[in-house]
């Protein structure tokens, strides 16, 4: 089994080479057929290569943490209204509640019906309260499982948009089985036969985020974060002072570039200069481009093979040391 280190520098290099080759091919195409619609793709690739090559400093990592949590940052429904046609929201876990911290529904993406699940923070204080700041209860993860079942029955591809500080840490959430439902939500994604793409579009906070992140392709926006614990939480434990959050963030490396290097995400989705909040329309266009590409990557597999590859991908995650067998 995979005892070698995952996504070694060599593999990152391979990725860069692969992108460069595509870039060269597209450049060539563009020269031959002036005006053919590859310029968006070119732009995307150029940006992606730029992202891969610069390692963020501690200060830059903290800037990203703040951008990921920016209160003007586009949320799931902002992207849905820009990249879906005729989105129909589906409410309720068919058991006892409708958790508005997590939205589910079906809509047309590129003319084809896709099932969507995504965390939703609120914009103003009323909506934030109603949506519990994007922190789902077990009911939310149950609603997601319901969506995965529906997608499987009707062969809809699944798009998952991740943006949560974490699953809600409350008494009722515990009594309703928060841990267990996060586990079962992951299992439901592992079992999907239809194509799945996840993208971290803001905060990828811990178990509540990965619960809907077990997809064939996992993307991450340039200024999103994906982490096992918030920098504040980590600082409070390891530094015994939540004020050391910047140091904790630098140590946790929750930024897209590091997540890419560690093999946790497959591609970085570029954002407009200064962050997605400056130009949500462009951010949505670039997100749609990357999602389209990711779906295309896994479109031709049959469902058994897709499941097998998805399992192999997550089975290989992690870096450990093992002696070379004698």
């Amino acid at each position, binding site marked *: 089994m995979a005892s070698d280190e995952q996504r070694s520098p060599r593999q990152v290099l391979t990725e860069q080479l692969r992108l460069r080759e595509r870039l060269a091919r597209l450049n060539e195409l563009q020269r031959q057929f002036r005006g053919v619609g590859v310029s968006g793709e070119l732009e995307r690739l150029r940006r992606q290569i730029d992202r891969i090559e610069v390692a963020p400093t501690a200060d830059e990592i903290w800037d990203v943490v703040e951008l990921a949590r920016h209160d003007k940052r586009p949320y799931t429904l902002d992207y849905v209204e820009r990249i879906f046609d005729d989105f129909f929201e589906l409410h309720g876990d068919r058991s006892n509640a409708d958790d508005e911290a997590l939205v589910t529904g079906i809509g047309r993406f590129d003319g084809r019906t896709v099932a969507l699940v995504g965390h939703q923070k609120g914009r103003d204080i009323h909506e934030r309260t109603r949506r519990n700041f994007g922190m789902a209860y077990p009911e939310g993860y149950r609603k997601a499982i319901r969506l995965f079942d529906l997608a499987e029955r009707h062969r809809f591809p699944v798009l998952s948009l991740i943006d949560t500080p974490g699953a809600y840490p409350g008494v009722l959430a515990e009594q309703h089985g928060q841990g267990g439902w996060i586990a079962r939500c992951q299992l439901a994604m592992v079992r999907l036969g239809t194509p799945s793409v996840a993208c971290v579009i803001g905060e990828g906070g811990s178990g509540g985020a*990965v619960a809907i992140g077990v997809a064939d392709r996992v993307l991450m926006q340039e200024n999103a974060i994906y982490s096992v614990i918030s920098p504040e939480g980590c600082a409070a434990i390891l530094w015994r002072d939540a004020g050391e959050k910047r140091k904790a963030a630098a140590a946790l490396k929750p930024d897209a570039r590091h997540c890419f290097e560690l093999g946790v995400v497959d591609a970085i989705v570029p954002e407009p200069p200064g962050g997605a909040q400056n130009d949500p329309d462009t951010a949505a266009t670039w997100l749609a481009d990357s999602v389209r590409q990711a779906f295309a990557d896994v479109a031709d597999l049959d469902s058994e093979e897709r499941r097998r590859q998805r399992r192999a991908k997550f089975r290989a995650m992690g870096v450990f040391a093992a002696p070379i067998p004698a």
Partner: protein
Amino acid sequence: MSSRIDVSVEHRGTPDEGAPGGDSPNTCPSCSSHYRDDELERTLRVCPHCGYHFPLRARERIGQLADAGTFVEEDADLRSADPLEFFDLRPYRDRLAEAEVSTQLGDAIVIGQAKIERRDCELAVMDFKFMGGSMGSAVGEKFARACDRAAEKSAPLVCVPASGGARMQEGILSLMQLPKTVCAVEVLRDAYCPFLVVMTHPTTAGVLASFASLGDVILAEPGALLSFTGPRVVQQTVREKLPDDFGLTESNYRFGHIDRIVSRNELRPVLGRLLALFADGV
């Protein structure tokens, strides 16, 4: 949003470090009775006076569950790496080295094959003393290998978690051990292998939110903390008094998250019965 809420997969808020009245590890934190080592060993480290279950080390647990001389450890030489070059007040590498010396374990889980009540099974037992039983890449990999081995042999997997959650020193890679171990459980299910989980104190955060909650049967020792978020963080969030049995085994049983509360002296016969029932279903 002055205080952001962390819903972390982490190892804190998990008692047992400096438990009240616990100058000595052999003093019962519940009723303050004091015992000699040999007394506690005879009672499987359960307080004969009040029934408090002292925490068990992984090897003690295996000694109590496996038929004598049947346990063969696997992958003992697998170790954590330091992919993030994590440094807080001290380097992660130092913490790992120290944990290895003080626990005599390679990491926070011990896996291997064994017999329980004369039935073959694969065992995966966690040790809270190794960095709070936290799950990093090495723990995830060893658990996944235990699943693979069980599937190869068509044997049941018996797993005894004791963990504060994911190991934050491995950053996002520790979070990825959640889907990784979930995938491993799927291997067991494909092979029709029974998966029995015995939750012990504490089974929390990332471990509760992944493989530990996916057992075909979930048993738990009495009085154990089994919660996604620890009581301290929940308290900070809701700012009201928590129920007395918040997150404990008894509360989890009441809400339907576990199948049975099993005290330590019953554990081996109960597992034997279950292994027999699952074997006779084939």
